């Protein structure tokens, strides 16, 4: 992994220089590249918030005082005030965990996510806890997208409520986001997921990611995954997904409630970087990844060298 994380700066400058030469012909261009400006995109993310509206109670338990939607919202507002291009994403399991869900069925969770300006989420297994109808019932409160590419919901109440992917446009950047869910059999009571059909996550992810990158020409492809970070056995996880797919830049994971010290960078099938991140559960943390892009006007070229990765923000 180490060699992946080290940028081959010299190679990059060389490639960048070639692009620059091509541009020099473009006399009337008044584009961002001419201004020498990098485009910056800020990804904020949560997973497995599990109806944690308020912080954990101050009762001496392990997570006491942590989390809380009011603080998360304040932090998100602060970041939005500083950053132009923000995407706020979630990796599922919005529902279940506090009496707010038992009493109100997820209405408050969805309302608050809408108020915070979430752009998209995917379906976690606990989002089925009140059945498909139970999730459907709360969707009028959602002004964000529910993305899931490997469930077929056509025979369910959610048939018109989800999309496999969505392309977000931020300052000229195209960001393709899609969702991948965990196998529900053995995890969710069959009566709660009804006729939901599950498809192989790796096949679907490859299919969708390839379309996003190569047909829709997305500059960044993000997978919202509820597969889980890793398992002791061969069960498909984010690590397995990352290593067996192409065209995915970032997997925002969930399900296993994993607290990663830093995001993990995996070499994917193309030898490129697929980053995996997951930020625990219950809204104890908010993840952030800033991506910087160099614009150029030309046919799409492949930059062969890994990009620079820092586990801190630019000051």
């Amino acid at each position, binding site marked *: 992994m180490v060699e992946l994380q080290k940028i081959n700066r010299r190679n990059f400058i060389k490639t960048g220089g070639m692009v620059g030469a091509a541009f020099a012909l473009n006399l009337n261009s008044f584009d961002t590249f001419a201004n020498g400006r990098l485009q910056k995109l800020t990804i904020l993310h949560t997973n497995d918030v599990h109806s944690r509206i308020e912080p954990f109670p101050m009762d001496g338990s392990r997570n006491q005082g942590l*989390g809380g939607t009011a603080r998360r919202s304040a932090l998100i507002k602060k970041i939005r005030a500083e950053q132009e291009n923000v995407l706020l994403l979630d990796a599922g399991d919005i529902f279940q965990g506090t009496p707010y869900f038992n009493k109100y069925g997820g209405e408050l969770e969805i309302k608050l996510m809408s108020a915070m300006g979430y752009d998209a989420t995917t379906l976690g297994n606990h989002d089925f806890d009140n059945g498909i109808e139970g999730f459907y019932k709360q969707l009028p409160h959602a002004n964000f997208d529910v993305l899931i590419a490997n469930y077929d919901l056509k025979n369910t109440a959610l048939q018109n409520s989800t999309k496999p992917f969505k392309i977000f446009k931020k300052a000229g950047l195209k960001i393709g986001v899609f969702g991948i869910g965990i196998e529900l059999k*053995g995890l969710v009571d069959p009566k709660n997921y009804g006729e939901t059909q599950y498809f192989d996550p790796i096949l679907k992810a490859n299919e969708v990611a390839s379309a996003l990158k190569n047909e829709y020409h997305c500059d960044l492809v993000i997978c919202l995954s509820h597969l889980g970070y890793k398992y002791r056995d061969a069960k498909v996880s984010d690590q397995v997904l990352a290593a067996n797919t192409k065209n995915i830049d970032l997997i925002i994971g969930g399900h296993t409630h994993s607290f990663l010290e830093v995001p993990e960078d995996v070499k994917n099938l193309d030898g490129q970087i697929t980053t995996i991140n997951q930020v625990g559960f219950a809204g104890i943390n908010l993840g952030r990844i800033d991506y910087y892009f160099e614009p150029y006007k030309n046919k799409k070229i492949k930059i062969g060298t890994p990009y620079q990765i820092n586990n801190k923000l630019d000051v």
Partner: protein
Amino acid sequence: MKYTLYSFIIAAIFLNSCTTTHYALTKSNREEYAINDKISVDSSVVKTYLPYKTAIDNEMNKVIGYTDVALVKRSTLPESVLGNFFADAILNQAKKIQPNIDFAMPSTNGGLRNDVAKGAIIVSNIFELMPFENETVVFNLKGNDVLELLKFIASSGGQPVAGLKMNIKNNLPENIFINGKEFDINKDYYVLTSDYIASGGDDAKGFANPIGKKVLGLKIRDALLKEVNDVQLEGKKINTKLDGRITKN
């Protein structure tokens, strides 16, 4: 001729500038924020959830009992204080409805959703421990199906059980005692679990071909609430211990 050449150049420039702008990813910076009391509060969010909170606080903040020990799931052993409390409580309450239950695995470890801190127990602690609406179900199982279940418990490193004692060796169960008596594969047993586990939840095994089954009409969470309440009515405090019901040697 000159004119044509200029046109060509202008056209070329024009075409070039019309091609799409692409972006090469050059850098990513990562950060993780802890959401704690150092972060200010968005009062509009509080304003949104306050009416919901007020409407349930009376019910949820009611003290229903006390525990002398922290009921925690984390354990280096195949048993945990929280798992023992949970399984004992459900078995005890279910036996009030059906006394001949031999043993219970009312949840997997994955189904224990939150610890309960030492001290007063409020209703919301029990909702957070057991948020699901699962029902208690008693299965009458043949000895070899019980063994399947015990193998699942052993291979998964132990699960919350009551009325069962065993050792795990090489991921298999041994020295098995059910309801105080040595396990006999030729006998059948009454096993308490949840509808979730019985339908294959968390990949639990052994419930697919029962001799019979009975839904008790007692939700797992309600059983927990009753147990805490009962202990309180007896003037006692919960004091669950690790007792070696499942060991690993």
